[in-house]
């Protein structure tokens, strides 16, 4: 069973950046199956507030993906090939494939873009002992395939009222060449996801963007440059 909380307007925005048909597949799907009652791994409900701050100068972030999964799951690994789900998010900002991964028990999505300098917060709930690992992922939309986040944060030892803080690096999914033209964000409004892989095909630390000050034909201007860290994540256990 998987519980998804997906406010409808997040998909409207996604459709704008990813060229999807508006509202297709849009629903709030709270699965009420009885299966959960039989789950032996259920425990009392733990509640967390997760806040993400966009630290970049001019890189809006796609709707943030928050997922809960088990200890052995990593949504990505530096040096390894990106999964298709990460590729789809990193190139087009669509986080729905991450939510659909079989390893993911619960998935939440931001309800719109997270603008530079702004913060968004979510309340998430975990009631499964074996799924106490959080991953946060989002695309830097004025790039070809840059994303950021943190995967596999262990929530199980966080006590009520306590907080954890992380800052995150910009990764390059390695699935699309950084031509600085085929990017879906407002700087270009160009192509998002494309299943062709024409880059090094491994996740790595993003080398940064050049902008039109240094790369002829780039759709980016100097304000779109970024340096690490690109987001700050704060997780507070509420109950």
């Amino acid at each position, binding site marked *: 069973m998987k519980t998804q909380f997906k406010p409808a307007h997040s998909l409207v925005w996604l459709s704008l950046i990813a060229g999807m048909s508006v509202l297709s597949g849009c629903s709030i799907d709270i699965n009420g199956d009885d299966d959960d009652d039989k789950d032996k791994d259920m425990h009392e409900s733990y509640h967390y507030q997760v806040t993400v701050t966009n630290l*970049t*100068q001019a890189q809006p972030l796609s709707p943030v993906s928050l997922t809960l999964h088990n200890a052995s799951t990593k949504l990505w690994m530096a040096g390894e090939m990106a999964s298709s789900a990460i590729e789809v998010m990193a190139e087009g900002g669509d986080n729905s494939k991450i939510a659909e991964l079989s390893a993911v028990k619960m998935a939440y999505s931001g309800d719109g873009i997270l603008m*530079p300098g702004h*913060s968004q917060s979510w309340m998430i709930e975990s009631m499964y002992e074996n799924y106490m690992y959080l991953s946060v992922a989002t695309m830097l939309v004025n790039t070809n395939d840059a994303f950021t986040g943190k995967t596999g944060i262990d929530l199980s030892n966080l006590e009520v009222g306590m907080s954890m803080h992380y800052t995150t690096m910009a990764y390059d999914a390695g699935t699309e060449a950084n031509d600085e033209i085929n990017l879906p964000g407002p700087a270009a409004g160009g192509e998002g996801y494309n299943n062709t892989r024409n880059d090094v095909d491994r996740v790595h630390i993003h080398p940064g963007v050049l902008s039109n*000050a240094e790369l002829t034909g780039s759709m980016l201007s100097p304000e779109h440059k970024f*340096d690490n860290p690109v987001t700050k994540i704060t997780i507070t256990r509420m109950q």
Partner: protein
Amino acid sequence: MKKTAQSLAKNAVMAAALAATAFSAQAAELDIKLYNLTHGITFTPVVVAAHDSQTMLFKVGDTASAALQKMAEGGAIDDLSSQVTTAGGVVVENPAQGMLGAGAMTMAMLDTQDNMYLSLTAMLLPTNDGFVGLDSWKIPSEAGTYTVWLNAYDAGTEANDEIINGGGASGTPGIPVAPNSDGGTGASGVRSTESNNMVHIHPGNIGDTDATGGISDVDSRVHRWLNPVAKLVVTVK
């Protein structure tokens, strides 16, 4: 008279001892070393502050205070410093006795009294409103030596036009100076606006290699950086 003076001095010593006892549960003596790790960026006079949880020099995602803007655009730390001391914090001002050049290190000693958090700022030159910062690092209660890596922030108060024109007052466009006389002149300007007016991670200098024109008075071979831009080594005694 002499006896009275001695007696007063003795009382003062005792009062100081009592005060020290009162705060001994939390007070920390810190030895601080700050290293400028950049290739060619100069730090203006540094302010190091110990303060409570309600006080801060800056916070990412928040609008810069007027005092922070004054430091980030012109290097002046007096307002930031007095804000901290007014709120009961303690500061070390300008430990390097002036600029802290690339590759240089400066040291400071700080008695934190009952303040639990450490912050630090210094403007980066040549930039429009860039600064190196530490925001409310919780001072460890256990004695030992701790290393913290510091990032470059953009105050979000001035567009990064990269024009060196002496403009260091808050709200005045331009960069005050390239301290090593390694900047250019006559640049047309990289940008005249900035959409993110919150404190954020600095995107870095663009620069160019034209000393008498081009888009920037900053030298792209000398004045770029990647985070971290400084190393802070704190010894809790």
